[in-house]
Each structure stands twice: as structure tokens, then as C-alpha cells.
């Protein structure tokens, strides 16, 4: 009985090894084909797109970083959003009609990525910027920043795009996938809340 069991066991192993051979050959062939497909043209195209990403980082990196920071209040998270936005650009290779179109696309991607991260990051409550403002003796700025942070996200994003990026409400509506009336309403409510908190320090006009 033991001999029979032994033969069965080794027979099964041998069979499984034999089955693996065509699979290994297929994998080797696939590696060879994919290796051959990596032509010089592909490399040049990738270098070109890397150059474009570099240009975007220089031209709009600050805007994307600040947009992400306004959602996440954390530099390393904002940096990751900036990085992911560039990767998204490389992956999708979008074509733009103008510089304004390009900037709006980048900010939209950054907004969406940041919003996705808000829930994931809810535990992280640190804000280096606020600590920096306090340590620099700029309590007036810290007060304003805390007030903006206290707003719900839907007001905060509109405030940032309107006051910092200088977009009109119709453009903000396009970036955030909202109706313009909703954006106007959020802007108005955000201003009102800031006015209530900041009182004489309010300067969002």
C-alpha cells in the first residue's frame, strides 16, 4: 500500500511539472515579445511626456500643491497629490486647447484625488502650516487659516478657487462638477461663516 501511495504522490508531482513546461515556454515567449516591443520610439515618447510633466510641475506645481493643501492640511499628503496628478497626466496624455484648459484639468484632478483622500486620512489632524504661523508670531494669519479650515469642504474649496486662483463662479462650477448656482451659494455661505468667525479681521472681499 505504501509503495502505491508513493508512486501516486511522485506521479502527481511529475505530472504537475510536465504541465508547467508549456506555461513556462509561453511566459518566456511573452517576455521576449514584450522586450522586443520596447522600441526606441517608445523611449523617446516617454522622455517627451516626462519633459511635459516637468514643465507642468514648474508652471502649476505650486497651484496644485496649494489646492491639495487646502483640502488635506498636510505637506506630505499634498506632495503625494501633486505627484499623483502628474502621473495621472502621463497616464491619460490629455490634449489641451489652451493653458487655461490645462490648469483647470490639473486642478480638477488634484481636487478629486484630494477628496478621495480626505476620508482615508481623517485620523491625521496635524497642520504644520498652522504651527509654522504660530511659531513665526503670525497669530493673525493663524487665526484666518484656522477659520478657513473650520469651513465644510464644499465652502473651503470654493473659497480657495475664488480668492486664491481668481476663478469666476462658472469656472469653479466646471472644475468641481457643480452647478453655478450651487457654487455661488457655497461662496456666499462660506463668506458669511468667515465673517462670523473673523469679525474685524475679515478681509475676503
Amino acid at each position, binding site marked *: 500500500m505504501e509503495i502505491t501511495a508513493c508512486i501516486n504522490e511522485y506521479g502527481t508531482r511529475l505530472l*504537475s511539472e510536465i504541465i508547467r513546461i508549456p506555461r513556462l515556454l509561453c511566459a518566456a515567449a*511573452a*517576455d521576449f515579445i514584450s522586450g522586443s516591443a520596447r522600441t526606441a520610439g517608445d523611449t523617446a515618447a516617454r522622455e517627451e511626456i*516626462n519633459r511635459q*510633466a*516637468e514643465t507642468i*510641475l*514648474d508652471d502649476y*506645481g*505650486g497651484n496644485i*500643491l*496649494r489646492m491639495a*493643501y487646502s483640502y488635506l492640511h498636510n*505637506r506630505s499628503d*499634498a*506632495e503625494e497629490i*501633486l*505627484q499623483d496628478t*502628474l*502621473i*495621472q497626466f*502621463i*497616464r*491619460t496624455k*490629455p*490634449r*489641451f*486647447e489652451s493653458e487655461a*484648459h490645462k490648469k*483647470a*484639468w490639473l486642478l*480638477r484632478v488634484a481636487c*478629486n484625488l484630494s*477628496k478621495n483622500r*480626505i*476620508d482615508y486620512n*481623517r485620523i491625521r489632524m496635524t497642520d504644520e*502650516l498652522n504651527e509654522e*504661523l504660530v511659531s513665526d508670531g503670525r497669530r493673525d*494669519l493663524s487665526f*484666518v*487659516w484656522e477659520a*478657513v479650515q473650520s469651513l*465644510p*469642504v*464644499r465652502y473651503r474649496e470654493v473659497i480657495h478657487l475664488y*480668492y*486664491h486662483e481668481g476663478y469666476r463662479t462658472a469656472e469653479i462650477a*466646471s472644475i468641481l*462638477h457643480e*452647478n453655478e*448656482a*450651487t457654487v*455661488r*451659494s457655497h461662496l*456666499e*455661505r462660506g463668506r458669511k461663516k468667515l465673517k462670523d468667525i473673523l469679525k474685524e479681521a475679515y*478681509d*475676503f*472681499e
Partner: protein
Amino acid sequence: MSKKYEEIMDRITVTEEMRERILQNVRGADTAPASVAVRFPYLLRYAAAAACFALFIVCTIAVPRILQQSQNNVSPGGDIQGVPDTAEYQSVQELSKQLGFQISGIDTLPFKAADTRYLSYYGEIGEIEYTGSDGQTATFRKSKGTDDNSGDYSSYDVTRELTAGSVTATVKGDGAKFSLACWTDGTYAYSVSLSEGVSIDRWKTIIEGTH
């Protein structure tokens, strides 16, 4: 323009180190769909094959619908990512007809509506937006399924369960006032978002009057 806010934002900059770090990561990132030969254990191979088959079936059903929707609504903006397939209708009847289910609206609004808009997103989510003369808004959404359809990503301090009629809704706000409610009747998902929060008692009336 807020000078103080500008001054705060001026402190958030891309430093040289950050720039180098990002470029290095971006250059090294795998930006193409991965084609890695994964060797599964023998039995898992059949599970993977079954999963692929299921995915194929799903794609066969979903892709024609997505293609049809994108043909129906081509954005003049071109390649902007994630532009929603939004359509506006003149009446609630038109909206219901487009969606394929009845959407009525909020009979018990907390303010008098001066303007009402009827919208659909991707032909699946119905939205009725009410705007009062003072600018406050109420946005009602209804869609098939039970997932939260509010699209509200805000983090709220307080979340409570509220029973109104035959449904149990989740309401969110600061504790004194609540500005978002989501619920389901098992077949449809509902959400109401208010630009100006109201008390939890007032929400009960709003939810009972929403269909």
C-alpha cells in the same frame, strides 16, 4: 481678495528637494497597465479564470452602455477628465421619464423656492435643486440602489440616525444643525443637502415630505 489668505498660501511652495523627489518618482512610476506574469497556485488558477470570465460578462454588458452615454453627451471641452454626463429638464415629469423611475421632490422645503432645476447625472441619478430668494439651496437626489448618492465629501462633527415615517435616515451636521441626510427604502437611495442646516426635528418633516 484676501491679502491674509494670499500670505498664508505663499508659504506653500514646491521646494527644490520636493521637485526632485517628485520628478524622480514620476519618472520611475509605472504609468502603463502592468503586464506581470503571476504564477498562481494550481487551484487559484481556476478561480482567476472564473473571475476573468465574470469580468468579461460585466464588460460585455457595461461597455456598450458607457459608449452609448458618451456618444449622447460629448463635451465641447474635449479631454477634461470625468466631465459628468449631465442633462437638464424642464419639469419633474421629463426628469422621471428620462430616469425610468418616479422622482417627485421635496414637498416640505425649509424655505420658499424661487428657482427649481431638474437634472440627471449619467441618466442614473435624478437631482432637483431648489434655490430660495436669499440664495440658500436644497439639493435632492434619488437613484436606484442603496449607496450614498449625495456626492458630499465634507467631514461632519456629528452623525445621527433619524427615523422618519418608514425609513431610517443618516443626518450629518454640527450637532445643533444638520445639513445633509441620506437614506434608502431598499430600492432607491435618497439624499437631501441643505446649504443652511436645520434642526433634527425639522429634518423629520423634510424627509417625510420627500419622494
